[in-house]
């Protein structure tokens, strides 16, 4: 071997030290969190109070965590940020159905402790706002705007906030508030007309999918309001014990119209009548239909007679027919919770008449103290139903909540 050849290996060995030094500087701690199935990489939930986590006529961080959307996000293994409220909430949920007491010291129906600043984030996944109707998700100041619209969306619309998350998956549950208050009030004619609902809903979904190409998701049907325990069977008024409970709850002696409140009546009475009678906003009298001996609004307001129930059912069916068609047109799954709701009612798990003797569970285990919003147990049922729907539609393998 020549002298010059013997130099080369030594020179290479010199640089070999560089490789050793380079190997000493690796960093094995730079990995981020494990990613979920790509389809669930970014999940957003658009909706109203149910999706936001409203329970017992209020909302706080505790109830927000129990939303089916949060539960579903957990099963997906994906990051899911919600607009956490501070302190007692805004407004704090009821703790006693009879007295109207609310969670937290000094809480009233107007208490609002604003947003929790320590959990502030730029991207939200749960963009649902209590009270939202089909008019609201794509409008900055919609007709159903409230303080929560400002606190949750910070000057943007639900659709805008959802798109900020660059979503790959979405659930949309909108439409309940287009009919709910009108049905409870016994005034179904005030519900959002079908054509308007279609226009609003279509724009919302079109804007959502346009801003997130390839988006997958589930459109959730509107609930048949008559199935919610906030509307109770008028025949219960013929039960002396129930009537006595109403008298005690209102502090009044309620007169019941015997001509309309018969053993064959199929009318439904809205639970808010209790507070209305108590406050004096409604006469201490209940009729189960129009044309009775008591002057208006008795027999009309907060009373949903048979014909009106048919009308409500028709309106909701119309909404849901469109929602399903829209889901099909955009390749989304469709989930109708009314089957589950009907089964729970048939089993007695959802009582047809509130238990006025219970201050903590008058509407059973699946509805909270306002008779409208699902309980934590119901949210689990909803989340598990969605797991089945999603797995069937997309061939995924989400597991259910035990």
């Amino acid at each position, binding site marked *: 071997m020549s*002298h*010059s050849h013997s*130099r080369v290996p*030594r*020179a290479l060995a*010199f*640089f070999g*030290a*560089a490789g050793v*030094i*380079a190997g*000493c*500087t*690796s*960093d094995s*701690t*730079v*990995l*981020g*969190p494990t*990613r979920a199935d790509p389809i669930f*990489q*970014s999940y957003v939930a658009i909706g109203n109070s149910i999706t936001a986590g409203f329970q017992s006529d209020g909302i706080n961080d505790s109830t927000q965590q129990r939303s089916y959307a949060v539960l579903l996000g957990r099963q997906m293994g994906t*990051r899911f*940020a919600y*607009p956490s409220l*501070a302190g007692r909430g805004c407004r704090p949920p009821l703790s006693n159905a009879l007295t109207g007491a609310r969670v937290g010291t000094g809480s009233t129906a107007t208490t609002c402790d*604003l*947003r*929790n*600043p320590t959990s*502030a*984030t*730029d*991207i*939200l996944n749960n963009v649902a*706002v209590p009270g939202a109707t089909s008019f609201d998700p794509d409008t*900055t*100041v*919609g007709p159903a*705007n*409230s*303080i*929560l*619209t*400002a*606190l*949750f*969306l*910070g*000057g*943007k*619309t639900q659709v805008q906030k959802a798109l900020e*998350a*660059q979503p790959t998956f979405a659930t949309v549950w909108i439409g309940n508030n287009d009919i709910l208050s009108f049905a409870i009030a016994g005034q179904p004619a005030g519900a959002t007309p079908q054509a308007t609902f279609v226009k609003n809903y279509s724009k919302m979904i079109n804007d959502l999918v346009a801003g997130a190409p390839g988006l997958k998701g589930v459109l959730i049907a509107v609930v048949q309001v008559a199935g919610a325990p906030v509307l109770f069977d008028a025949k219960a008024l013929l039960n002396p014990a129930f009537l006595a409970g109403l008298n005690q709850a209102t502090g009044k002696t309620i007169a019941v119209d015997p001509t309309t409140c018969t053993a064959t009546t199929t009318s439904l009475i809205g639970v808010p009548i209790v507070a209305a009678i108590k406050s004096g906003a409604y006469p201490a009298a209940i009729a189960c239909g129009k044309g009775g001996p008591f002057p208006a609004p008795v027999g009309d307001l907060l009373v949903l007679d048979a014909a009106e129930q048919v009308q409500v059912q028709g309106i909701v069916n119309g909404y849901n027919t469109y929602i399903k068609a829209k889901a099909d047109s955009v390749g989304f799954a469709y989930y109708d919770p009314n089957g589950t709701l009907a089964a729970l009612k048939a089993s007695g798990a959802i009582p047809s008449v509130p238990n006025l003797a219970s201050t903590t569970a008058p509407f059973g285990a699946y509805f909270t103290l306002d008779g409208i919003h699902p309980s934590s147990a119901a949210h689990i049922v909803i989340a598990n139903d969605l797991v089945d729907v999603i797995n069937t539609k997309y061939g995924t393998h989400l597991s259910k909540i035990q």
Partner: protein
Amino acid sequence: MMRVLRVSRYCLTTISALAIAAPSVSAQGFGLSEIGSCAVARGFATTGSPCKDASTIFWNPAAPTTLSGWNVTAGAAAIAIKGKFTQDTTGRVWDADEPTSIVPHLFLTYHRPSSKAAWGIGAYVPYGLTSQWTDDFPGRFNAKKASLQTIYVQPNFAWQVTPQWSIGGGPIMGFSTVELIQGVDLSTQVTPTGATFAQLGIAKNTEFARARLKGSTTAFGAQIGVLGQVSPAWTVGARFLTPLQFKYDDADATFTQIPTGLVLGGTIQAPFTAGTPVDALVAGQFQAGGKLVSQKVSTKITHPAQIQAGAGYSGYKNWLLSVDYAWVGWKRFDVLPVNFADTTLSKTLIESYNNTSAIRLGAEYTVPGNGLKLRGGFMGVASAAPPETVTPLLPEQDRNYYTLGAGIPLMSRWVVDAGYAYVHTPGARGRIVERSSTTQTAAQLNTGVYGLSANVFSVTLKASF
């Protein structure tokens, strides 16, 4: 107009943050080593065995005694940096919007061969940086753009104490300009009610203003060096560059309102009512009497001391091998004060940098017959920043430099040196928010991973007369 916010002092990081700022990759922190293309190509291991050109004024101020006659060295390095941040929560990646930086160098020496004295002067850039991110980068509230341009001018005198040993050095006058542009986050601003805008629902990282800070100043220091030929094949050398403290006492801060386009969707309480444009609520802060008006700001940035020592071996025919150790005193970046004319905006930034060490390896092969020189090198550099201080201003992390180049003779008196360096980093977890307390840990602060790499192209024209 009702004052609807109080600008929080922790919302503005400023010039002092810039001190640590920007993804300069060509040394640790905001240090730069692209001083002469021969040095670049030889892995910057050029103190124990300096390049045979006037750039030795920087690399070893004693070495001009080894040159003959007039020597001029002039050139520049183009530094093209690629940076990115990958956010944990969304997996989203933001690429840095880095412009290519041009770093010049110019040296002149004179040594009459019969004399023991050598004179010279050099202008070089041992510290500097530019970083820039896109308008939607969530870390823009730490830094949207940062620029530090510092040039040292060093007159130099070297003396050959013995035939084997020389010493040298000179004073340094430094000129520095800094600029920082950053977003101001509305969510952290306080309303007259005492609640922050975040508590009222404004999302984090809602930019409603952009702050621009700019200033310049001068500072003084010195550098000394020693060089020894300890045997026919071995040389040793060392240099010490003093720290220079730049005090930017007369910098300017200006603020521009950035429209948010937000409209409150519901009523919270007056004046935060449904339908109110948020931009109208805060407009008054940019007018006379408001917080976000032009004002003076001051801070100080210490360019740290450097010690470099090494050796060169030329015992293999046509080969020169060199190894250097370099130390930089970054520990002086513990905290940095930022003082606004409006003292309510003033703050002190927590940096907690550490002193650093680097190993530099270089090799040079002279092609027999034509004088062409082929060069290669490597430098391994430890991070100056602790895990809590990897930021958009400077995503500091361990770095490896792989270098190569050539020296091409042109006629008898001219040489063109070309050098290339690829800078590799392993990636480092970092933050995009300010660290407000020393009790905050990296696990609490860091929300993503910074990636960084760079390509450096350097060209130098040398002449000797």
